[in-house]
């Protein structure tokens, strides 16, 4: 590992540690806002891990927030399990579905993969709506347990930190080179000995596992949800936009993208109620047109900084 890589790792760990101390000092609302930002950093990092590096566009990531939320919620409601025990199980549930779905669909490329995953999320939403004996259908479920407000802050911070760490590891490891090779030319990658299907599947399942855990936690934080809340395509779209804004296939892309979008939305929404969405839309379009590699990607290019290399 090069000196630059190690230095950024230490910097990252220091940032997470500093954030963890913040609740002792910060005003209440900003903790709430940060809680939500960390949640979205986590989701965007999961999406970026799979799609940013391989170029496979998953348009159904909301399937895994939904599975996570429902697995955890129903385990609490029907079996009375404690909330914290249901979270890893929710991740496991999402991971297993990802394994079953990823096995065949990860052989598809381009738009076909996007359509297959989009259909998955929609189909699962219908199942939850129709299977009212188990899920109470479209009326939704009320979650009986909730953690303290600060627990969500720390859990989301921890998960976001972990996921950015995983992305950093992937970026600096053989696994990441494999993923990038798939992005550039999958056939060539296979020919030089990358087990493309295996590493795609590993990444997809890992990403789904964490999305499931995040979805489960957020379900309990909201306290009530229905299928079209947790399987909502807007969740996926937000992950995509955040990754695009920050820079796809970069370690800090999801962090920058999620923070930027949430902060801008919060700031403008409070001041320009009637046209803030227009401004945000213009900003998104502006970034995509003028900074096609996203904020971090384009900055890095401008400043000629490469990960792990001296300028």
């Amino acid at each position, binding site marked *: 590992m090069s000196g630059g890589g190690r230095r950024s790792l230490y910097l990252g760990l220091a940032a997470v540690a500093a954030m963890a101390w913040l609740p002792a000092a910060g*005003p*209440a*609302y*900003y903790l*709430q*806002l940060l809680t*939500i930002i960390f949640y979205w950093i986590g989701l965007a990092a999961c999406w970026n891990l799979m799609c940013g590096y391989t170029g496979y566009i998953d348009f159904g990531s909301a399937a895994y927030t939904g599975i996570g939320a429902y697995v955890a919620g129903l385990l609490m409601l029907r079996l009375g399990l404690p909330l914290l025990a249901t979270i890893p199980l929710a991740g496991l549930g999402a991971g297993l579905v990802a394994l079953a779905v990823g096995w065949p669909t990860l052989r598809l490329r381009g738009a076909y993969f996007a359509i297959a995953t989009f259909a998955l999320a*929609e189909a699962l*939403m*219908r199942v939850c*709506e129709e299977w009212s004996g188990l899920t109470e*259908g*479209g*009326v*939704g479920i*009320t979650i009986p347990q909730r953690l303290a*407000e600060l627990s969500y802050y720390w859990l989301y911070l921890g998960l976001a930190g972990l996921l950015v760490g995983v992305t950093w590891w992937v970026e600096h490891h053989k696994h990441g080179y494999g993923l990038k090779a798939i992005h550039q030319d999958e056939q060539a990658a296979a020919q030089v000995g990358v087990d493309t299907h295996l590493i795609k599947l590993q990444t997809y399942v890992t990403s789904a596992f964490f999305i499931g855990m995040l979805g489960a936690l*957020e379900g309990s934080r*909201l*306290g*009530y*949800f*229905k*299928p*079209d*809340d947790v399987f909502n395509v*807007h969740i996926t779209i937000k992950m995509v936009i955040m990754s695009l804004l920050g820079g796809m296939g970069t370690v800090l892309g999801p962090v920058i993208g999620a923070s930027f979008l949430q902060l801008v939305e*919060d*700031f*403008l*929404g*409070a*001041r*320009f*109620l*009637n046209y*803030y*969405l227009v*401004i945000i839309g213009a*900003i998104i379009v*502006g970034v995509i047109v*003028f*900074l096609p590699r996203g904020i971090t990607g384009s900055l890095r290019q*401008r400043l000629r900084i490469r990960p792990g290399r001296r300028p």
Partner: protein
Amino acid sequence: MKFRRAGIILLTLALALTLGLAAPGMAAQEFTFGCAVPLSGLFGKDGQLVRDAYTFWMETINARGGIAGKYKVRIIFYDDQSDPQTSAKLVERLVTQDKVDLLLGGFGSSQVMAASAAAERHKFPYLSGGASSNKLYERGARYYFGTLGKATEEVRGCVDVFTSVTPRPKTVAIVGANIPFTAESCKGYKLYAEKYGFKVVHYELFPISLKDYNTMLLKAKAKKPDVLLVGSHLAVAMRVVKAMKEIDFNPKGVAFSYGPTVPAFVQGLKADANYVFAASEWTPNLPYKGPVFGSARQFNQAYRQRFRRSPDYVEAASTAAAVVQQVAMEQLGLKPRVTAADRVRLMEKLHQIDLMTFYGPIHFGKSGANREHPPVAVQVQNGQLINVYPAKWAEKPPIYPTPAWNKR
């Protein structure tokens, strides 16, 4: 070159943000209310009505000097984008960042569930006139109050009206979007249809994201029901009418749980909006009268003057929620800044209050759910919303059966 373009964007953004920062500060002798309501997304149009209602209440009160005649009212509105996570976040913002004195409720059961849960954690009373899912009252919440009836009861007028027409319908089909309010509406339809001896020949809940309404309605058409009852919000109601015309589906009557009373319904569908029935909790000709706005008719007139349209019942219910909170505040003699102890007293007062208003009686009792109002049904006749049920308040008799699409 590219650098310069990016620079211009950043400059524009910075300018916009600076302008935004120049928001007015908080004056000492006023009450600040906070409200997170959908102004974009699926419920953007419905939420705008709620915003109008509170704005109207604020303007009326302030023109008279304010609450208790001396404390002006200011409302901070935020857009929750029809998203529960955002709704809860904005309530947190209003309470902890903007430090509002009190809250005003939003619109839509999912958003209100999340927002009122946040309000409950901060012990802020949350009164809503824009949500009626039964689930809202099953949480044991102490700070949640709703002026609308529970969804299953709210739609009763839609079924009751068909007991008053001749020939009496024999069969009904029930379809509705599978989200809380509309699904519970369907449950209410079924309950009362069976009670009155109408045979339910078709029952289907469809996903809210459904695009192909034609196929869904063809199934109902095949059963040849006399009456079609639809569990709907505005968007669903409009899509159903359009699809009915396309597939030439001609039941003798069609009724919606919500939608036709929103002005956008008649504006959007024009003549096709005629003859549809809708449930209502309130119409301007009901014999209700109370503080602040006087009678239902006077409220309607003043509202028309301000917005050039009549208020629908969600607007009336939302205004009533603001009024009942105001009356409780005045009875307790609250002054700005409202303290945490004041809010506990206000919550207790609201559980006891028994008030007649322009919107009808308001009595929340222990559960927080308003006492049931008598069921009312309206019908679109010549582009106007006409109260057609019950007979003692009806402006005109219901037009039944509805003429076929090719005979209009």
